[in-house]
């Protein structure tokens, strides 16, 4: 029964709670039990808030009983990357420096989830200051992949990917500055949305790079992802970068009809160096989309090579600014990786930083016109190679490690520079038995289109239904 409960999607369990087929308390207890069971092997939690969530679940059940108006996430346990502030509650950012940090404000996205009825199960592990793509963390311990704990989870929202895949919760918020939602989504076999820059408020979240940071959900189904996005998206007077662009009713648009939609396959860059097993998964996913009536169109896309260094100019300067005082006063409390990645930003000329920022609108406009005048979405692998092990990507490794990290993010980072939405969708497994995913990239604010196609794909496949067997549960 508990396993059945935990294998329900977010939308299914929300409906079951609403219809009194199951209580929020039963669901919360099952999540706590699973979280405690997987934690020794996976280390996806920094804190499990057992008493608080049980209290909240009882209150949620009372609301159902008295016929109160219920939100779309009523009584559903979620857990989040440990960087979404709640006034008075510790938010570590996966760091040593913020181990005891209690912000005085609450994130808008946290307020919106609570208003929709979601419960808070706990704070999830993450890369220190959201600054690496693997899931290594020397302060809180590495987060391990529930499919095979020797392998990376992807990062920086490592705990989010692992916790959702391991069925400890029904969804999670992550953040994506260069791939930090899509990589752990792909690595753990779950869905992850990096929304359009400005689609979701970033008020009261730990900043990494102001100009590139986005907040989005990781879930097991596209429909679940659409539901959470519908709750958190929209303008926010507390975040001037949050867009007033209208928020679609994402769930209502999921009709599984994609006949005639044009799916683009990039001829250049995004498939370079792809391994045979990842290629096979991509081809199979395209065959599914074709069988649903989508038109698959190959096209040349603007080469993103020059955007990597522009992204570095922006990222290094902004993160150096954010961490400047700590870099001066307590450099020893950073991991060597984060410190060295940030130092260069102190010396990049201000003019170069602004030149990179000023080039962004032009490069994005060129990309959108060249691609989205021809197709509705672009389809590409999130990663072009099977997931490496933690030891293969360990901090302090030789030059090959840096090359591998660059390869991990080569298909995700350009999308952050362009500010476009991208949805990672599970597409099977590579030869090493680990998940693989494609991403659907759309024009600005086309999250609804990505959800439609991703949901139609999941209607024909069951990759998202596969459950990892965590060692402790054997």
């Amino acid at each position: 029964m508990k396993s059945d409960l935990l294998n329900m999607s977010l939308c299914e369990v929300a409906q079951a709670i609403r219809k009194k087929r199951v209580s929020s308390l039963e669901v919360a207890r099952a999540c706590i039990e699973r979280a405690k069971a997987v934690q020794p092997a996976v280390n996806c939690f920094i804190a499990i808030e057992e008493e608080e969530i049980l209290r909240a679940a009882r209150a949620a059940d009372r609301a159902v009983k008295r016929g109160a108006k219920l939100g779309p996430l009523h009584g559903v346990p979620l857990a989040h990357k440990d960087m979404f502030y709640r006034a008075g509650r510790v938010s570590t950012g996966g760091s040593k420096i913020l181990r005891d940090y209690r912000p005085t404000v609450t994130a808008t996205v946290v307020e919106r989830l609570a208003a929709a009825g979601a419960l808070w199960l706990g704070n999830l592990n993450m890369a220190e200051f959201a600054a690496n793509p693997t899931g290594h963390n020397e302060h809180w311990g590495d987060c391990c992949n529930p499919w095979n704990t020797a392998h990376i989870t992807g990062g920086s929202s490592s705990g989010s990917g692992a916790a959702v895949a391991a069925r400890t919760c029904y969804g999670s918020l992550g953040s994506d500055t260069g791939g930090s939602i899509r990589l752990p989504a792909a690595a753990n076999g779950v869905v992850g949305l990096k929304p359009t820059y400005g689609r979701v408020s970033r008020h009261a979240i730990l900043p990494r790079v102001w100009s590139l940071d986005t907040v989005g959900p990781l879930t097991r189904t596209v429909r679940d992802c659409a539901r959470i996005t519908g709750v958190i998206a929209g303008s926010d007077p507390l975040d001037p970068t949050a867009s007033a662009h209208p928020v679609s009713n994402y769930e209502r648009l999921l009709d599984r009809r994609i006949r005639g939609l044009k799916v683009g396959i990039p001829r250049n860059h995004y498939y370079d160096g792809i391994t045979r097993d990842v290629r096979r998964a991509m081809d199979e996913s395209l065959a599914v989309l074709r069988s649903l009536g989508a038109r698959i169109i190959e096209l040349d896309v603007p080469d993103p090579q020059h955007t990597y260094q522009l992204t570095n100019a922006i990222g290094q300067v902004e993160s150096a600014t954010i961490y400047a005082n700590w870099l001066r006063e307590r450099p020893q409390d950073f991991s060597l990786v984060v410190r060295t990645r940030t130092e260069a930003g102190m010396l990049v000329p201000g003019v170069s930083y602004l030149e990179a920022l000023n080039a962004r609108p032009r490069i994005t406009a060129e990309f959108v016109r060249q691609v989205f005048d021809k197709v509705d979405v672009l389809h590409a692998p999130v990663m072009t190679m099977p997931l490496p092990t933690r030891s293969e990507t360990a901090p302090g490794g030789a030059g090959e490690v840096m090359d591998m990290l660059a390869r991990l993010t080569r298909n995700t980072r350009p999308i952050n520079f362009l500010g476009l939405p991208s949805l990672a969708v599970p597409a099977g497994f590579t030869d090493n038995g680990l998940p693989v995913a494609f991403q659907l990239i759309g024009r600005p604010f086309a999250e609804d289109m990505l959800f439609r196609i991703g949901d139609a794909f999941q209607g024909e496949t069951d990759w998202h239904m596969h459950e990892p067997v965590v060692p402790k549960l054997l």
Partner: protein
Amino acid sequence: MPKNIDPQAVRRLGAQLRGLKVSAERAAQLAVEIARVNEAARAEGAKNDFNDQPTSFAVTLATLAKP
């Protein structure tokens, strides 16, 4: 190829401008990294217009959204 930056200058400016203390070896790495980033920004900046400004990115995204 990015134009070379003198590691000694990186070390000196880092200390004088930002209180950044790095070894000679690290200064050499930083010099390469900064040169690479700086050159890319300079090359792209040559295509920018004097009316460009960073805040126009949000407007661009809104404009490029499907009507």
